[in-house]
């Protein structure tokens, strides 16, 4: 390469890398424990307000308003304490499952296998009968995944994790997967990047559960 070209390219390179670095500092996606948290999704089913990753605030008592706090994958490398969200939601419009119990404000407790052990604890109190079915357990490569699905009026109203095993920080994927599945009302939603195996296992278990309806 000629010297003049080299200098020009060098300057442009520094500029591009510098600019992209700067842009990256305000990026919402945070790589943590191996998979990148996706941008919060908005749909009629899930709420519109989603707290950004790493935020310490949740909305106490917001479950009935239809808005749902986005699950926030923890940036810390430590294992998250398992938390059960047994109370569920009373409103049929709320997706409930992945939202934390209003009173809890610790961000790290909102994710990771949120409901292991709580089978079918969710009941829908409004009108239509809601039915809960369990899916088959599926080995993802990172651990066994098994879901339980609650449906009312042909809509998925709640998904709980019967088994939520995913090593390498992949467990942080479950709240997102639940959110996606409820929004899509099926197992037909985009894979979560960086947690593809966990996603696939989740979908498989979900499909086996949906097939029972």
């Amino acid at each position, binding site marked *: 390469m000629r010297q003049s070209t080299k200098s020009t390219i060098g300057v442009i390179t520094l500029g591009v890398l510098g600019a992209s670095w700067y842009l990256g500092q305000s*990026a919402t996606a945070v790589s943590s424990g191996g998979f990148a948290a996706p941008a919060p999704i908005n749909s009629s089913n899930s709420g519109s307000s989603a707290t950004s990753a790493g935020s310490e605030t949740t909305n106490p008592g917001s479950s009935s308003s239809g808005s749902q706090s986005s699950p926030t994958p923890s940036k810390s490398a430590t294992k998250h304490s398992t938390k059960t969200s047994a109370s569920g939601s009373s409103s049929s419009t709320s997706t409930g499952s992945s939202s934390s119990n209003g009173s809890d404000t610790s961000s790290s407790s909102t994710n990771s296998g949120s409901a292991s052990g709580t089978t079918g604890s969710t009941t829908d109190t409004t009108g239509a009968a809601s039915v809960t079915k369990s899916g088959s357990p599926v080995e993802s490569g990172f651990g066994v995944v098994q879901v339980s699905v609650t449906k009312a009026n042909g809509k998925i109203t709640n998904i709980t994790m019967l088994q939520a095993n995913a090593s390498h920080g992949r467990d942080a994927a479950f709240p997102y997967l639940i959110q996606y599945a409820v929004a899509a009302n099926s197992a037909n939603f985009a894979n979560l990047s960086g947690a593809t195996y966990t996603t696939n296992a989740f979908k498989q278990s979900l499909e086996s559960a949906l097939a029972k309806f």
Partner: protein
Amino acid sequence: MEQTTTKRPLILVKPKTSIRLGVRKWNELKRGQDIIEALAWATVVFVTAIFFIDGGAKDLSSALNITSAIDRLTALVATDLLLIDILLVSRIPWIDHYYGQDKATVAHKKLGKPILYLVLAHFFSSVLQYAIGDGKNVVSEFFAMLQIQDLLFGTFALALMVAVVVTSLNFARKAISYEAWYLIHVLSYGSVLAAVPHQFSTGNDIAGKPIAQVYWIAFYLFVLVNVVWYRVARPVLRSMRASVRVAGVVRESSDTVSVYVTGRKVATLGGEAGQFYMLRIMTPSQWWRPHPFSISAAPNENFVRFTIGNRGDDTAMMQHLKAGTRVMLEGPYGVFTEDRRTKEKVVLMAAGIGIPPIRALAESMAARPGDVTIVYRLRDQGDASLLDEVREIARRRGFYLHILDGKRGIGTSWMNVDEHRRTDRERFEYMAPDIRNSDVYICGPTQWTHSVIKTLKEIGTEDRLIHAEEFAW
């Protein structure tokens, strides 16, 4: 076709009547090279920039995040460079046109080790990252990761890549046979392919990111298409169409023969004087071992001719090729051609078995009488290949011919012994008075070529006027 045992009458092609000269041609070449290099560099900058924009290096506060960032960035850059490295040896015409296969091969070799280091860094940081995230030790984490099929493939790919690079290191290359090296090197394609699944399934930077996805799929496909077409499909198709065979073998000296290759449509092969083909002898033991040989006669409608010296390896066998033997020709390749010429005056220099491309260039170059000076260094005028032909060409076309025969001069001289004790430089300037203002084409043993270039630099010939074919195979 019967085996030729007597020399054919010398039939020469009509020389070119015009050639574009001037420094602008050189500048265009340099501009093209700059664009190619800038594009290659841009791909590396692009993947790095996308990584930054995604926030890949946003939070480097913990060991986990740092290893994760190293893991991803090294993987991206290594994959990008690896694809470029494959392109360099896929015999793409525009790479050949701008750089020549020899320079491309040299670049390919140079890039090999840095890529391996990046992939190793990716591997270790990745295991470390997961071990930190899982709170396990590195070894058990590694075996846990092997449970995942795509990562198992990825590890396999790494092992292959280590084998490829290590066996290509100079000391190892000497220790193992060509066959072993070749087989391992072919496996490098397997290495690249085995690494693909985990890039798309577990890669943070590809799955679910449309721009990155489009980029990587496009790049992979581009490389795949180029390799399949230019390395495999096109040579096979062209050879089949021309259906080339050995027509005859003519002894040129005690240790060189000319191999005439003909076929139905040999004229369609094209090419230029100074170029070379990868020649494959299509026998059960030889078909997979291509050898580069320059054509020793300008491209014509009747035959392709190689003049092959016996160097004790496969070239020994080629001294006794039978007429009718099927061969396959890949090419022609190379930039040791008139295309690179920018001056009216030309000096053509050969030593020993470096004569074939020089002989072909002398035959077909656009030149007036007196424009071209040929310098031929050899041991014994009675046993020099193509000497009669070179003499005949010089006589017919009015070129100067200097034959430097006999023992080598003292010290670092690249000429023969001079009874007047002049330096190489003095003699060179005497033989080719226009040497500063001439294009110089040099073909000979590496040591000799370097000595000539050294003298040229002393004289003050510009780099762009020096054309030397480097055999890097």
